[in-house]
């Protein structure tokens, strides 16, 4: 076994069905050694099932799981060089923190565990708590015990099943940085399952967005955000505005589009749909890319920017930025986030405005999909 690829995780055609319900569609995925990989999706999208199949807690209905060069599909969990941090931590309530962390080492017949456990507890800053029982610790401390208990075994891959879900927002932010630090320090492959897009984007080098048992898109967080391949990804990762448009022609590397009475420009490279002239596509743009100018000053907008006219329907001031909802003939609830640098007091509800943005920030998607896909789920999570 080569050390360079010993921690690669390769899933080939892996799927899971329960009766007639397919939790995970046949899936191919490679997670390179040493990376921090996030499986992101709403609940029920198959991300946890995928993780459990890697851990060996769930038997795949088809396909193989490879760790490095070793096929582990048929191995029970206790024979896999993989450890999991469970959603509920699953700490052993009858053992103290020291014994919880030492559990894996003892099972593998390591005789003197004291030094290793001590070091690991120091790494997660719990050296003082070694003789306490799990229920005597706070949620964040229990979470760190769960990480320590898994990491001490130096697994090839560490699986994290929504490990921060039970923590409050502030602690969660802190633990995100902590986990990221630990990962950089130990260099183990981390596969992290989460439904929190912000968490996935801040922590992972690569994010796979899952929806209904499939990977919708895979890539670096910034890449996914800037170039979503589907409305689901566009809506699940942040907010997107969509305009239905018709391809009018092509000039150089750009597509010219007809949207209502107006004209928009879209870099051809950023259009994932077929761009035949006359074809319909969805034009997307992120709210923070858009500038707002009062209709009276429309003349001051530089040429070459995409522009749309509308009327302010609502504005809410949230500190670093102001969020506007704009009614426009092309889209009834256009969202615009404007940084609070120079506030134009005229931009109050009812004002006529021009929305404009750099065409390079536009992306094009196949029009034959649900514009709302992924958006409702984000709201559900936010409400929960």
């Amino acid at each position, binding site marked *: 076994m080569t050390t360079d690829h010993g921690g690669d995780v390769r899933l080939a055609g892996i799927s899971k069905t329960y009766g007639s319900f397919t939790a995970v569609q046949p899936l191919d995925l490679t997670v390179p050694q040493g990376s921090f990989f996030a499986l992101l999706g709403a609940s029920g999208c198959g991300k946890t099932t995928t993780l459990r199949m890697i*851990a060996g807690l769930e038997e795949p209905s088809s396909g193989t799981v490879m760790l490095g060069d070793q096929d582990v599909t048929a191995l029970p969990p206790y024979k896999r060089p993989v*450890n999991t941090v469970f959603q509920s931590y699953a700490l052993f309530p009858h053992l103290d923190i020291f014994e919880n962390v030492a*559990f894996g080492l003892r*099972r593998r017949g390591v005789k003197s565990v004291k030094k290793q456990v001590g070091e690991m507890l120091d790494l997660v800053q719990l050296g003082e708590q070694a003789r306490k029982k799990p229920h005597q610790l706070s949620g964040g401390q229990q979470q760190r015990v769960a990480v320590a208990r898994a990491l001490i075994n130096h697994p090839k891959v560490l699986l994290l099943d929504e490990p921060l879900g039970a923590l409050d927002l502030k602690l969660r932010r802190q633990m995100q940085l902590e986990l990221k630090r630990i990962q950089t320090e130990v260099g183990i492959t981390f596969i992290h399952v989460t439904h929190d897009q912000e968490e996935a984007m801040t922590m992972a080098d690569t994010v796979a967005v899952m929806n209904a048992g499939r990977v919708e898109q895979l890539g670096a967080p910034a890449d996914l955000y800037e170039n979503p391949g589907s409305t689901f990804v566009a809506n699940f990762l942040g907010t997107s505005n969509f305009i239905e448009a018709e391809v009018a022609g092509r000039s150089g590397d750009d597509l010219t589009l007809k949207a209502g009475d107006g004209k928009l420009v879209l870099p051809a490279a950023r259009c994932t749909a077929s761009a035949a002239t006359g074809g319909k596509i969805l034009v997307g743009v992120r709210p923070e890319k858009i500038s707002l100018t009062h209709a009276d000053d429309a003349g001051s907008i530089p040429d070459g920017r995409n522009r749309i006219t509308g009327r302010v329907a609502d504005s809410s001031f949230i500190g670093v930025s102001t969020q506007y909802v704009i009614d426009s003939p092309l889209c009834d609830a256009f969202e615009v986030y404007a940084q609070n640098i120079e506030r134009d007091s005229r931009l109050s509800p009812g004002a006529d405005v021009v929305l404009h943005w750099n065409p390079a920030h536009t992306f094009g998607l196949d029009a034959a999909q649900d514009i709302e896909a992924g958006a409702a789920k984000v709201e559900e999570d936010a409400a929960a």
Partner: protein
Amino acid sequence: MTTVTETPPAPPLTPGKETRKPRKRGRLVPYWLLLPGLLWLVVFFALPMVYQASTSIQTGSLEDGFKVTWHFATYWDALADYWPQFLRSVLYAGAATILCLALGYPLAYLIAFRAGRWRNVVLILVIAPFFTSFLIRTLAWKTILSDGGPVVSALNALHVLDVTSWIGMTDGNRVLATPLAVICGLTYNFLPFMILPLYTSLERIDGRLHEAAGDLYATPATTFRKVTFPLSMPGVVSGTLLTFIPAAGDYVNADLLGSTDTRMVGNVIQTQFLRILDYPTAAALSFILMAAILIMVTVYIRRSGTEDLV
């Protein structure tokens, strides 16, 4: 105007009184609720105990009546005369408890983790025997273990009886009227008292702990040894206590399934009280049994180290 100025002071007074009163009454409510139970315990537990304690140090006869003479020698005499029955009680009840644990643990485990939607059905089956009388069920064992019956023939054919006879549990080709029959009866009768607490504490174990143990390199056997069993200790302790304590004082099984050689201390107490009418000895025997059980239970709970788990 006057009504307006006069009425306001009145309402605060009454609410003030009312809020103070219910609070006082509220604090007393738990004690009032305790009262019936306490009365019950005083009348049916504490008073009889005192009465029996005084009986145990009386001397006299039925004709002349009994008098408290602080005759503690009754205790020594009772122990000297009946120590074999005491020993037998502990042995039989101990054997029955171990058998109950051996039979009950796998069953409770299956109900808790594997029974799925049959769980409640199986649980009802466990308690179902209680729908008929204890006596009738024990008498049924007389038929089951009868000489030449299918069970005895089968055990004989398998040479099981040779082994049990060799260790003195059966007598040749007979099972009935032997220690084995009494132990079987005790095991059968107290099995549900073992299964139910075991089930309750197994069922409380989070299934994810099993997954976590497997994930941390524990084989299924090690997972059981290091996680499941330790976490079920409260059930094991309460199950063994609920089995051992009544089994040690039981006399029905030894009476119906045993012989004069299998008499337990319960049988002696029963005979002393109801046939020989030697009340002091019977009362002394009862207290010795109670003290012995209390000591054994205390040592057991200490040793099993489950004080903080129970």
